[in-house]
């Protein structure tokens, strides 16, 4: 029983990381049709930003978290503004492919740049909180708590604010939204900035647990992709549930079935879900 609870806890925590990155990815994807692979590299750079904020500038963790989120947001915003936007206007066949290719290239670019500048050696992010509860350090529990808080904030933003409504409208029907006078450029900018901020938050939250290194964005990105699909491009709550669910499924799979395939369980979860609900669990039909 102890193992079961431990794995449940671990799964929830790692799942919340997936969920955070997936949330940003999902919103971007629903509106622009781009699977923004680059988020994986914004994740990495934001983690380094947070690390340097703490070790060089000596700021408290919360500030480092904000720094990471800002860096993520700024990078994401810039990439949309100066790159992705170029190919939106074009009506030539394959604009979406170009954006995807650009996203992949950006991912390679920043991850390898981090490796070249700061070397592959992992940087240790100092612990900001000591002590633990039931075997889980407070920092670890914080990841889950912070994720939930951020999700609630995003939910409120999407549901209650005017911009949030605009975003929802754009994700449902882009053409109609434009006809209704919604400024797509603004929507895009906000959505990308949000995505970057969320990836950055996930990265900094997780850094004290696992340290900072150039390839740290690979796996979270992969898992976030799955979570988006599982959630069916649906609701904010759906993403959280799917993210947590995937984390837990992986933890249980690795414990009770096979640890070597820990990162392969996502595949089975994906297949099973799509077989039962082809549009994802919370997908709009």
């Amino acid at each position, binding site marked *: 029983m102890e193992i079961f609870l431990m794995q449940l806890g671990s799964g929830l925590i790692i799942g919340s990381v997936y969920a955070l990155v997936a949330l940003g990815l999902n919103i971007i994807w629903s509106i622009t049709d781009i699977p923004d692979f680059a988020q994986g590299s914004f994740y990495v750079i934001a983690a380094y930003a947070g690390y340097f904020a703490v070790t060089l500038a000596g700021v408290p963790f919360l500030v480092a978290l904000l720094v990471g989120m800002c860096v993520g947001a700024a990078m994401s915003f810039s990439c949309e503004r100066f790159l992705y936007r170029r190919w939106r206007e074009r009506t030539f066949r394959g604009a979406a492919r170009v954006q995807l290719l650009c996203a992949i290239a950006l991912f390679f670019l920043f991850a390898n740049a981090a490796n070249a500048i700061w070397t592959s050696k992992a940087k240790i992010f100092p612990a900001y909180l000591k002590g633990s509860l039931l075997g889980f*350090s407070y920092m670890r529990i914080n990841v889950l708590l912070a994720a939930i808080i951020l999700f609630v904030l995003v939910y409120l933003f999407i549901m209650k604010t005017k911009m949030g409504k605009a975003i929802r409208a754009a994700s449902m029907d882009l053409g109609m939204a434009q006809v209704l006078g919604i400024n797509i450029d603004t929507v895009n900018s906000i959505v990308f900035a949000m995505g970057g901020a969320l990836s950055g938050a996930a990265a900094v939250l997780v850094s004290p647990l696992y340290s900072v290194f150039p390839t740290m964005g690979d796996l979270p990105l992969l898992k976030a992709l799955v979570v988006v699909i599982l959630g069916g491009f649906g609701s904010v709550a759906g993403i959280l549930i799917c993210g947590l669910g995937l984390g837990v499924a992986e933890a249980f799979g690795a414990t009770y079935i096979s640890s070597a395939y820990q990162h392969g369980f996502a595949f089975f979860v994906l297949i099973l879900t799509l077989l039962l609900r082809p549009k994802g669990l919370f997908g709009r039909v």
Partner: protein
Amino acid sequence: MKHFRKVMLVITVMAMVLLGLNTPGFAAKGIKIGYTAPFTGSAAEFGVNGWRGIQLALEEINKKGVIVGGKKYTIEIKRYDSICTPTDGVANVRKLAMQDRVVAILGDHCSSVCVAIGPLCDEFKIPGITIECAADKVTKPGHEFYFRMRPSVGLMAPLITPTIVEKFKPKSAAFLVVNDDYGLGLASAIATELDKFGVKTVVDETFERGNTDFTVYLAKIKKAKVDILFYIGVTPEGAMILKQAKEFGVTERTVLIGSEEMGEMELVSLAGPEAAEGTYAVSLWGAVPADFAERVEDRFDAPMHYAVIFGYDALHVVARAIESAQSLDPVKIKDAMKKIDYEALEGRIKFENFEGYRNQCRFVPSLIQWKDGERVPLK
């Protein structure tokens, strides 16, 4: 015909560059030695550290120069990234041999690459010396032109296991190893040896390189209440394992023994002295002169790592071989390498053929323990 000219121009340029890649390096003032290692990807830390060692050796060697036939030469290193994949490693070696015309090759660090380039060294008749591949088959049966200093997993296990059994008197063991040739090879070799002493392997887990979350595995290990846990990986992984093992209370019951990586200062700098306190690791090198460790710290602002030592020794071995052969002919250099016998940083370097191994040195690994952030050799 305007477009025709443009097309021709593009193609001609590309062809010229391609063939330009082909021209062999013209007579150099220096001696060229190649170095293939992973500098990107998840195994990048090996190449980075190996390169540091090579650079230190390079400075020393070039200060005096290498005297061959009365003339003084300096060494120039050509280094290429193998990303720890055999296809890139092979491309590197082919480029080094055919285009850069090196007289010797250092590398690689990953066994999968070493296995691929060993035969190439024979084919091109250029001696190669691996920095740290550990799989048995790199030198067993091995190749005439490929050398290894450190012991393979098959050599290490029977040498270190009796020490472990004697010291900890375990009844059960667990393995938590990285899913690559080194992790699997070493784990299986040690498990076999342990079995000879009646120690049963109860938990055997593998993880993918780059993994940071070990809670799943540690929970299983804790539940199994084993006496010793072997953990094999690179220092970031090891650091995470130590921290999480401490966090989840695994260290209370189980003795943690790490692979060579885990005996490096880098582990403590990543995990922190408290997490490492009291744990053990296998070590391939004894005490290193304090000033060497300082040089590494000062020069690179980074902690000591065994790849630094191996890289350093590897280049010195080649330089000695060149001077001893008094020739820049790779075949003669290879012959000279076979006759080398001296005390390097890591131990005595003498390449021998024994027990099916070829061009292999014999080191006896030992155990170290972490106390107050310092590595204390045992025995």
